[in-house]
């Protein structure tokens, strides 16, 4: 429709005009038409990338969301073939009653399968199962002016690797076949414990990660001094006993975009502190439905609006294991000093399962993610300071979340960019790629 599309962070605020296509067999012709009139385009899923990686240089995107059909489902083996515009939530609604779950899921279930592949997303079980791309068997790829290619580890393997984490630049993923993971219940058995500082986080992670499918920590990014890096450690596993129940629809919604961000130093400090204090000091067993465990923010539709009209930026970096603790301490100190930051920053120890993708973000190390309301000062003062710490520690930023990283940082952190650029479909170009490469 004519409604403009934005990225999740609503910064940069470049409205995209969506060209929707409802049928797989019409997609090649549709793509030809859009490219003929606008020179370049970019596939757009459900707009869950934060920065400008999902925005087309031409501002004319191929809107894939209506391509949400199941193509084939084998409930004996858990192999599911779907059109690429289906969301993870829609997949779960289908698979949970039959005893299957996504082997890897990011922190929102509203991303599309195409988006999950193009950003090679990861989740709370990265230390065991790697990225989403590790569970993609094959997919269809449409490159402008060519017949559909099937890509897998054995068919067109180079394009398979380049497309996983390829930011939608190598072609349009029109369908994908993924492997599901069997579950006997949809509930999650979790254990929660708070920790007082970063050192405790690392020892908890070393002690608990290998024993649990899922592991993540929320931290109070405003805590200073001896409290730096205090937070809440959460591990979980699919329950062995329970029922197979699909989650309920979100009922809350942020109805309008306020003129200014509702996130300020005061609200933040109070919330973060209270959140930390409300959690137990001793490991405590809990049980929850899968949606609050994996997708706490999905409960409030369009929560991105609370950051106001100027939007927000997420800063997500991963620091290699050897430098992680020191660099994270520096990062958190810098953030706490700035007084800016988000409700709950996310800390996650990534594992060493290699992704098939060329430009996959995770590496063996620790990843930190947090949101900031967009301001000019953020880009001019705090982010350059954080970038310098990440650079010195040999870490990198996540393109799916990014709206600021410099071309030189990107090219240094992702040396495979040259291969991706060589395999890029020249008719597809994002604002991100134009910013960091061209």
């Amino acid at each position: 429709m004519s409604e403009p599309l934005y990225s999740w962070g609503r910064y940069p605020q470049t409205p995209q005009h969506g060209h929707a296509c409802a049928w797989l067999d019409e997609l090649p012709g549709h793509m030809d038409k859009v490219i003929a009139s606008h020179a370049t385009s970019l596939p757009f899923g459900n707009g869950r990338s934060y920065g400008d990686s999902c925005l087309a240089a031409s501002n004319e995107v191929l809107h894939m969301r209506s391509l949400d059909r199941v193509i084939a489902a084998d409930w004996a083996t858990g192999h599911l073939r779907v059109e690429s515009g289906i969301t993870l939530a829609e997949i779960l609604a289908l698979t949970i009653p039959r005893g299957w779950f996504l082997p890897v899921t990011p922190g929102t279930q509203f991303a599309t399968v195409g988006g999950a592949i193009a950003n090679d997303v990861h989740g709370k079980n990265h230390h065991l199962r790697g990225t989403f791309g590790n569970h993609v068997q094959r997919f269809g790829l449409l490159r402008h002016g060519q017949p559909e290619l099937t890509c897998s580890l054995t068919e067109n393997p180079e394009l398979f690797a380049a497309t996983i984490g390829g930011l939608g630049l190598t072609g349009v993923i029109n369908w994908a076949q993924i492997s599901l993971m069997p579950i006997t219940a949809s509930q999650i058995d979790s254990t929660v414990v708070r920790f007082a500082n970063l050192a405790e986080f690392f020892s908890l992670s070393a002690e608990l990660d290998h024993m649990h499918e899922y592991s993540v920590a929320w931290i109070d990014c405003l805590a200073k001094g001896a409290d730096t890096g205090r937070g809440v450690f959460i591990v979980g596993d699919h329950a062995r006993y329970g029922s197979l129940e699909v989650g309920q629809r979100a009922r809350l919604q942020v109805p309008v975009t306020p003129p200014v961000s509702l996130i300020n130093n005061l609200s933040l400090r109070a919330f973060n502190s209270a959140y930390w204090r409300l959690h137990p000091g001793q490991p405590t067993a809990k049980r929850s439905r899968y949606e609050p465990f994996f997708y706490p923010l999905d409960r409030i539709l369009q929560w991105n609006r609370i950051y106001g009209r100027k939007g927000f930026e997420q800063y997500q970096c991963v620091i290699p294991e050897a430098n992680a603790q020191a660099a994270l301490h520096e990062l958190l100190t810098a953030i706490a000093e700035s007084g800016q930051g988000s409700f709950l920053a996310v800390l996650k120890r990534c594992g060493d399962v290699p992704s098939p993708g060329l430009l996959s973000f995770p590496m063996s190390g620790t990843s930190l993610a947090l949101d900031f309301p967009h301001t000019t000062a953020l880009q001019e003062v705090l982010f350059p300071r954080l970038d310098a710490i990440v650079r010195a520690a040999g870490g990198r930023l996540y393109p799916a979340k990014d709206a600021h990283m410099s071309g030189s940082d990107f090219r240094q952190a992702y040396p495979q960019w040259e291969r991706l650029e060589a395999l890029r479909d020249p008719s597809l170009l994002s604002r991100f790629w134009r910013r960091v490469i061209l």
Partner: protein
Amino acid sequence: MKRVLIIGATSAIASACARLWATEGSEFFLVARSAEKLDQTAADLQGRGAGNVTLHLMDATDIDAHPAMLQACMSALKQIDIALIAHGTLPDQKACEQDVNLALKEFANNGTSVIALLTLLANQFETQRCGSLAVISSVAGDRGRPSNYLYGTAKAAVSTFCEGLQARLFKVGVHVITIKPGFVDTPMTQGLTLPAALLAKPAQVAERIVAGIARKAPTLYAPGFWALIMWVIRSIPQPLFKRLNL
């Protein structure tokens, strides 16, 4: 499990309804013009839990082909629990004002073809003495508006026909429901500039339709707030209405 006949099965609203019935393991007889689109729709429904899905190619305006379609449907489903008539086009009103043949063709797409199908199906349902006959009409049929009165006229004919049929079949236990969707974000409305606040998703409309059929509602605005909007539009006095460009 229901046995469902859908005419215009590849339409966005129809396939969204079918998805909901598919999750209960329903069987389908799907009728549409395009084999490719029928295949994609059938695979989707089967992936979502549908039982047998039979596909039938037919242009709804080819009235002579209707009896053979119904026969094939009966031999596949044995009994129709729900028949959903969902085919249609959105005519270019301005072009229809200049071209009589186009206007009549569009009237056939949205009006006479539906009346022909309903005439045939009514007799089948009268024999069955059970089931629901669901017809997608439109809010556009509630009043003739200058922006699309040809479409509105065809839908008004369908709505009135359904009202009569409802009274006829009610006596033998057959439920007839007239569905009046407002603006829905579908390929049919692509390219139109519609107010975002009023634009519904097919899945949202489908949920209301499926629930309306289940509780045997007689007429159904979808989404429900259109009942209010159309009540206001119907209440505008003629001297004022003719001066508006709705």
